[in-house]
């Protein structure tokens, strides 16, 4: 009897504890207290009164189902901080998809890195300290490092981006990206895309497929930079047009299939080796289902740029912050009235 009573007590205790745990979790996440003060203007806007507990992120989580979109609320209301008691307008949609303002339009810089080195810059390498300083600069100065998918959403005039958005990419697939850049990016919580040319993978100073898989699983985006890294825009010496065409077909189709097979993720963007392209290459990319492709034209991108000529700014050699700042143009002046 005594044993059975003890067992029942233990079970009841466990159930009660479980309940308390679940309930405690609910208390911290459920947010219903705005309901008494919010006013739905229409399907697109809600007015809420800010409480002491609110942050942009918590409001974005509550109303936009995405805590990372706090900037959308801040930008619509032209504020940087919240004050309890103030009335806020929450936009429930992308209210300015092209980043258009009376004085101009938004542009998004895409940074293009290659190799990193511990302390020696080179023709294609940037030092660890410079890279760290650049990432810190982005964080400290309110830049939002966005994914390639977000950039494409913006270029498709589907998605609004934070006013200071920037994309980080790496070319080729150097092991130093894995060894040096990856820990720094993780520290700052920045996403990045790595364009690999598949013949390079597993080479002496290149990442292996295991490294690449690990990066992909960690949320880094892996895209294509052809098979052999040939210049796609010109015929080689003594190369016939037919040979050139066959080579393009292989450079464009083979790595896409290989990356998709190895990583089980879609590969739909390409970085042109040396940033060079032409009409035939673009026509072929479209035929093979690529969504976008990247040059290195050293410009920032408005939403209306040709998606097969998205510009990137290459960063290599000795690169101090002053030089870096010049690559971060996020707005183009133009009177739009």
């Amino acid at each position: 009897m005594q044993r059975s009573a003890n067992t029942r007590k233990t079970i009841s205790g466990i159930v009660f504890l479980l309940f308390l745990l679940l309930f405690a979790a609910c208390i911290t996440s459920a947010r219903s207290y705005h309901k008494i003060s919010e006013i739905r203007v229409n399907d697109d806007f809600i007015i809420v009164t800010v409480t002491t507990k609110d942050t942009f992120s918590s409001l974005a989580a509550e109303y936009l189902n995405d805590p990372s979109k706090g900037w959308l609320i801040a930008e619509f209301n032209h504020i940087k901080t919240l004050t309890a008691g103030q009335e806020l307008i929450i936009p429930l949609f992308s209210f300015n998809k092209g980043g258009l303002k009376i004085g101009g339009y938004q542009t998004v810089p895409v940074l293009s890195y290659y190799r990193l080195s511990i302390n020696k810059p080179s023709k294609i390498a940037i030092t660890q300290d410079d890279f760290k300083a650049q990432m810190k600069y982005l964080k400290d100065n309110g830049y939002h490092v966005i994914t390639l998918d977000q950039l494409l959403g913006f270029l498709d005039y589907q998605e609004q981006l934070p006013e200071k958005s920037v994309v980080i990419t790496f070319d080729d697939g150097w092991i130093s990206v894995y060894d040096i850049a990856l820990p720094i990016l993780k520290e700052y919580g920045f996403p990045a895309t790595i364009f690999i040319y598949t013949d390079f993978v597993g080479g002496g100073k290149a990442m292996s497929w295991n490294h690449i898989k690990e990066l992909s699983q960690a949320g880094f985006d892996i895209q294509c930079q052809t098979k052999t890294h040939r210049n796609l825009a010109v015929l080689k010496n003594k190369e016939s047009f037919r040979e050139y065409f066959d080579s393009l077909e292989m450079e464009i189709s083979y790595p896409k299939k290989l990356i998709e097979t190895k990583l089980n993720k879609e590969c739909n963007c390409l970085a042109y080796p040396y940033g060079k392209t032409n009409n035939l290459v673009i026509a072929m990319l479209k035929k093979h289902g690529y969504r976008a492709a990247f040059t290195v034209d050293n410009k920032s991108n408005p939403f209306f740029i040709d998606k097969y000529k998205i510009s990137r700014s290459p960063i290599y050699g000795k690169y101090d912050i002053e030089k870096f700042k010049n690559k971060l143009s996020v707005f183009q002046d133009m009177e739009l009235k």
Partner: protein
Amino acid sequence: MKRLFTICFVLLVLFFFTGCAGVWEFFGDIADKLSEKKSEKAPESTKVLPASYYLEKAGQYEENEELQTALVYLQIAGRLDPDSTKIHEKIASLKSAIDQKAGQHFTTGVTFYKTRKFEDARKQFLTTLRYAPGHKEALDYLKNALHPKEYRTYKVEDKDTIKDISEKFYKDPSKEFLIAYFNNLKTDSKLASDTMLKLPILEPEINRPSIHISAELAKAETLLKEKRYPEVLGVSEKILEYDPLNQKASDLKNAAYYQIGLELSGQKNYPEAMKMFKKVTPVYQGVNEAMQEAINKELLKAESLLKQKQYEQALAVAGKILDYDKSNTAVQNLINTAFCQQARNLIIRKNYTEALHVLSKADPEYDCVKKTTSDVYTAKKKQAEVHYLNGVKHFLNEELQSAIKEWEKALVLNPEHQKAKKNISNARSLLEKLKKVK
């Protein structure tokens, strides 16, 4: 103990069925009912700012040309004060102002685009989108029309083979595989007429021409200076065959056609001049004015021929003008007037069938065409009556065969002439009876 166990069980079930928020709301409701006091997480102030605040903000945004934001603030004011007709009128007026501004900038953008002022066009389309973010046409210009195309489309002509098209487009029949590849065909596929094919435009770097483009351009420029225009055309067209996007070659070609047109105008050969001007891109400076001048000269010629009643010649001249200026109303008027006058002459000559045939070529909506057509039918009826009476006279003179002939003529002109029909029948039966008596 049992009770505690049951309560816990019920709460867990409740949690699983409603989720976190549901449980929280459930307790929130109970708490609210038990006490009027707000929870400590409730907002410090649930007072809503008055409509006037949002109205004022809307005014500020409107003043700064931020019309979409102004609209949001007005809508909020309208939501807070739903009975205010003033606010709702303001909303309607602002929406209409937005549409108007967007429409104006879009139209200007299209004009710039048509005159190849692409940067100006882009600015206008961006402004359109700033006022009306959902403006699909402006977006289409920005995202598609303003980007160079990597393809040309080609409409298959009768008996075209892929090899022919490759020869025509790339000056190289061996590039047939390229056309097949981009159009999902085989190189020996038979092509149906009017099929549209996509042909990638190859830059000269990869479609190596057998000519030296910069040398040819220099040659064409020299020829232009020497006023050897037909030769300029030959060279520039050769360059464009290899490099269809070569702007310098296009400019030279336009200049040559324009100059040839001016020379022909000087020789008063306006039809040929118009043909040359038509080949020049419409944005080429001066070409529209030169074309208009040639058209006006030809129109004067057509009017003069019409006055001299030389209808066929007047129509031929006017028809050529329409080839180059389809919507020229003066020419359309002249053509319809010529048809009407021709038909009137035919009415006088009692050639009603031909008159109707001439009028069938004219625009039936024109007043003179309507009137003349009606006159033809009236004249036909009148003439039928004349033949009918002639028939009666012959009948009274016992000339039955002649009477029948006249009534038949009346019937041709007016098939509904009942008396003529009846009289023919009577006269024929009389003739039969007379035959039997004889």
